[in-house]
């Protein structure tokens, strides 16, 4: 064939895809007559825009609309196109390629652009009909046919860019879609946790179910796929399974021909392989150690490759920095560069809860190292350009996060120098998203009505009166308008540097806004850091737990080590173990089991604590589950000696033996401990019951203390024996044991619902006043019963022995075993 043009050099392209054809286009621009060009394409189509397969699947585009080069383009440029012809061998000696269909063509230059292969996870059932990948038009046709033929359930394995675009497309086609993702958040390579959370929530609101931290064990079905089995035993129905877990450079042909291949076909800066006659471009190559899965690098590769083929001197290809967008209509998302943080990295975070916006810029040495934008991606290209140019942004660092159009009506959160940024806002900038109040309206009200406090502004303008997330901004405006005349109205201190909200506001807004997870709170309340700090995360975790019993999933990475490991860390990194001894009672069986455990695990110290039980010190972390198992076997459970929760209920011996005892204080103590163990509270809680006013159990310096008298029980609250000794306040005198339990439950629940994290009952009651507590617990019978009922309800979910779960159920097994032993 083509004998007429024998005088020209012969160029053969393997792979009729985006990178290959772009290279040919670039080459034709430089020198249209130098080569006689033949293209082999395994697909039956002309070159089309692969990235637009997602809109085709979603019905937003037709195949014709995504064609890049139609047949007449090939004809007009004298390019011979052989479709449905997969090249199977390269003979480097003879300089020929041969296709599956038996076509052999000789070359002077060979260009490989074979793209990538989707990675198929090696699980049973992967070959069943109904299991597809998402790479080419054929895959899209299979999916569309399945949806049209009444396929109802689709499972997409992989929550990356491709998987989510597939999931969206299938959902648009009427299928119920479940995405199974190995990691904790979707698109974790491109997004940080906060943005991943927003994306997941948006997908879920479109009816797409997302299961994270899930590993596929097998694909089920006989002659067609019927479901997917997860590692944890869950089974999900499926008529269609899309594998979108990643891609591998398609290097089979190059490898068989003996070219240098590592992860991809190794090329130099001019896209030349280890054989000078053979070049390669696109996803199949590895350049300076990197492989790529996006189109932007291909354009640059194509230019360098065309320079080389045309004999034009060029700088060569130097590698690419890439950015990502998700092509799902209605979801704006942009990510570029590195945002994993590290030394000298600085985060600037902006959240606008009302508009659902999250932006994060990572700076290093005054230059942008990475950016994640969700909900508002207008400035993505601007940031990306500065990132690629390594532009110094120190001159406008404070307003950087507001974007290129800063000063033209942007409202929202507080940048690094909040005052300057707020001053620079235009009068039409919206400050309060909930009530649509702009800056001008607020400053005008301050000036004309002589407002001086936040409450004044709330009353007159409604700004900051709803969700309160713009409170910081409104205060800035007061400060700007009034100067020194503005006293920050003894504004409660923010929880920590991650937020401007004080504890009480956060508690209130969690309930008011039905916020149910830490990322959700951080977004809605416009946290200034991407994932909080060691001070706010445990507090948020507690507030959520207290607000949504039974519903909230504990975020265990937000707990202090003791509460994660269920033992107390010691100064040498070992742990102490304290089993519960109900009301201070023990038995020969328990003592024997403790003695055995001490011998078996060579525990160095055994001590009787100030809380009437036994502490085993110096246990190695790896031994904890085994120690617990033995203690469990003797009927003992965790004493929560590590918890912001119920610690001990001290008792004295009482009427059972003591000649002065008026009531069974030991029995009362055991009942209280049985009722209250396992509860999570803002700080630790200690109880005690004494059998007479001699008070041998020191009940009047406890969080809730009970002293028996002839006619009943005296109840005391808010005592503390710690750093600042505080004697209890007398709360009430009651007659029956049932009343003691009810008052106790109600008091603890009030504390659980209203105190700030790390407040013990003493400082809390001092702040709110004993009268307030009496009003809620003593004077309001119905209110007390309701509080107690809420306490009992939350106990349903917290009275599980954490030791038993870990000793026998393997919960958090990774916590106790080293990752590896080396050397």
């Amino acid at each position, binding site marked *: 064939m083509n004998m007429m043009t024998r005088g020209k050099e012969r160029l053969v392209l393997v792979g009729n895809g985006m990178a290959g054809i772009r290279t040919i286009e670039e080459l034709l621009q430089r020198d249209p007559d130098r080569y006689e060009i033949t293209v082999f394409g395994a697909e039956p189509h002309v070159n089309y825009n692969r990235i637009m397969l997602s809109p085709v699947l979603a019905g937003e585009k037709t195949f014709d609309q995504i064609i890049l080069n139609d047949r007449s383009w090939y004809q007009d440029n004298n390019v011979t196109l052989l479709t449905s012809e997969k090249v199977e061998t390269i003979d480097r000696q003879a300089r020929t390629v041969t296709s599956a269909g038996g076509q052999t063509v000789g070359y002077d230059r060979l260009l490989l652009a074979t793209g990538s292969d989707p990675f198929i996870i090696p699980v049973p059932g992967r070959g069943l009909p109904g299991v597809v990948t998402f790479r080419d038009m054929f895959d899209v046709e299979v999916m569309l046919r399945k949806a049209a033929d009444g396929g109802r359930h689709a499972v997409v394995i992989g929550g990356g860019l491709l998987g989510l675009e597939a999931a969206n497309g299938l959902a648009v086609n009427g299928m119920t879609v479940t995405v199974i993702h*190995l*990691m*904790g*958040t979707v698109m*974790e*390579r491109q997004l*940080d*946790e906060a943005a991943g959370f927003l994306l997941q929530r948006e997908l879920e609101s479109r009816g797409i179910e997302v299961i994270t931290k899930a590993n596929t064990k097998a694909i089920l079905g006989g002659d067609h796929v019927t479901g997917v089995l997860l590692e944890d035993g869950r089974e999900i129905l499926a008529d269609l399974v899309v594998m979108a877990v990643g891609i591998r450079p398609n290097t089979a042909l190059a490898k068989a021909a003996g070219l240098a291949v590592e992860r991809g076909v190794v090329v130099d800066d001019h896209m030349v392989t280890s054989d000078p006659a053979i070049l390669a471009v696109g996803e199949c190559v590895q350049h300076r150690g990197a492989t790529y899965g996006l189109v932007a690098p291909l354009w640059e590769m194509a230019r360098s490759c065309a320079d080389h083929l045309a004999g034009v001197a060029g700088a060569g290809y130097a590698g690419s920095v890439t950015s990502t967008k998700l092509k799902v209509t209605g979801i704006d998302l942009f990510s570029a560069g590195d*945002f*994993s*943080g*590290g*030394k*000298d*990295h600085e*985060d600037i975070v902006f959240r606008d809860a009302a508009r659902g916006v999250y932006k994060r810029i990572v700076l290093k040495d005054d230059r942008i190292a990475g950016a994640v934008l969700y909900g508002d991606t207008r400035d993505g290209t601007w940031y990306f350009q500065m990132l690629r140019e390594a532009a110094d942004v120190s001159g406008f660092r404070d307003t950087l996060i507001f974007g290129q159009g800063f000063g033209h009506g942007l409202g929202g959160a507080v940048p690094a120098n909040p005052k300057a940024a707020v001053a620079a806002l235009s009068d039409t900038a919206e400050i309060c998203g909930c009530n649509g109040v702009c800056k001008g309206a607020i400053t005008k009200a301050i000036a004309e009505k002589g407002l001086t406090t936040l409450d004044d502004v709330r009353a007159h303008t409604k700004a900051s009166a709803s969700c309160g997330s713009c409170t910081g901004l409104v205060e800035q405006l007061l400060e700007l308008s009034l100067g020194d005349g503005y006293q920050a109205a003894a504004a409660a201190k923010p929880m920590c540097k991650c937020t401007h909200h004080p504890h009480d506001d956060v508690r209130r807004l969690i309930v008011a806004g039905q916020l149910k997870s830490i990322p959700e709170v951080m977004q809605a309340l416009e946290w200034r*850091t*991407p*994932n*909080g*700090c*060691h001070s706010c*995360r*445990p507090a948020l975790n507690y507030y959520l737990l207290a607000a949504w019993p039974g519903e909230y999933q504990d975020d*265990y*990475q*937000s*707990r*202090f*080590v*003791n509460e994660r*490991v269920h033992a107390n*860390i010691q*100064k*040498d*990194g070992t742990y102490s173990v304290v089993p519960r001894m109900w009301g201070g009672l023990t038995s020969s069986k328990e003592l024997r089991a403790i003695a055995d455990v001490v011998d078996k695990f060579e525990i160095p110290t055994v001590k009787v604590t100030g809380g009437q039980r036994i502490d085993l010190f110096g246990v190695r972390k790896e031994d904890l589950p085994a120690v617990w198992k033995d203690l469990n076997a003797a009927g003992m459970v965790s004493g929560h000696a590590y918890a912001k929760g119920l610690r001990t209920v001290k008792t004295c011996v009482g009427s059972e033996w003591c000649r002065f005892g008026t009531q069974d204080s030991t029995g009362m103590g055991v009942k209280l401990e049985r009722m209250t163990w396992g509860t999570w509270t803002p700080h630790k809680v200690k109880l005690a019951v004494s059998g007479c006013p001699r008070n041998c159990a020191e009940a009047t310096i406890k969080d809730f203390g009970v002293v028996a008298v002839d006619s009943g029980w005296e109840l005391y609250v808010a005592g503390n024996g710690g750093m600042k000794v505080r004697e209890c306040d007398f709360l009430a005198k009651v007659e029956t044991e049932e009343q003691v339990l009810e008052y106790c439950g109600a008091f603890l629940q009030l504390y659980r619902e209203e105190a700030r994290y790390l407040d013990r009952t003493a400082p809390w009651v001092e702040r709110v006043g004993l009268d307030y507590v009496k009003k809620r617990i003593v004077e309001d019978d119905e209110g007390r019963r309701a509080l107690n009922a809420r306490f009992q309800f939350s106990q349903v979910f917290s009275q599980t022995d954490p030791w038993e779960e870990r000793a026998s159920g393997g919960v958090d097994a*990774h916590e106790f075993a*080293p*990752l*590896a*032993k*080396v*050397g």
Partner: protein
Amino acid sequence: MAQDISSIDVSWIEVGKVADIPPAGARVVKSSQGDIAVFRTADDAVFAVRDRCPHAGGPLSQGIVHDARVTCPLHNWVIDLASGAATGPDEGCAGTYPVRVEDGVILLGLKLPAAAA
């Protein structure tokens, strides 16, 4: 002051998968040179730091991880994971190890004694 363990001549040793460490968490690698804390941030960056706080030797692997930092469980020093250095007013450095992730597998760069390597 910073102990530079990350110099030449290291052997790269597989110690497990990124997925073996919970996000915003850490696991310990026991080595002849002492415990090494391998951290995974919420954004899936991986760091390796000597598991000894420069303050009083606290096990950093047991701390709360936020961004690319960890708060020591004993007295709340905040350590930068990339450099191993204490942040804020505190001074000291735990020392870091070279670490690399390939296809989800974590490789630690260790200078092992000739006999063990």
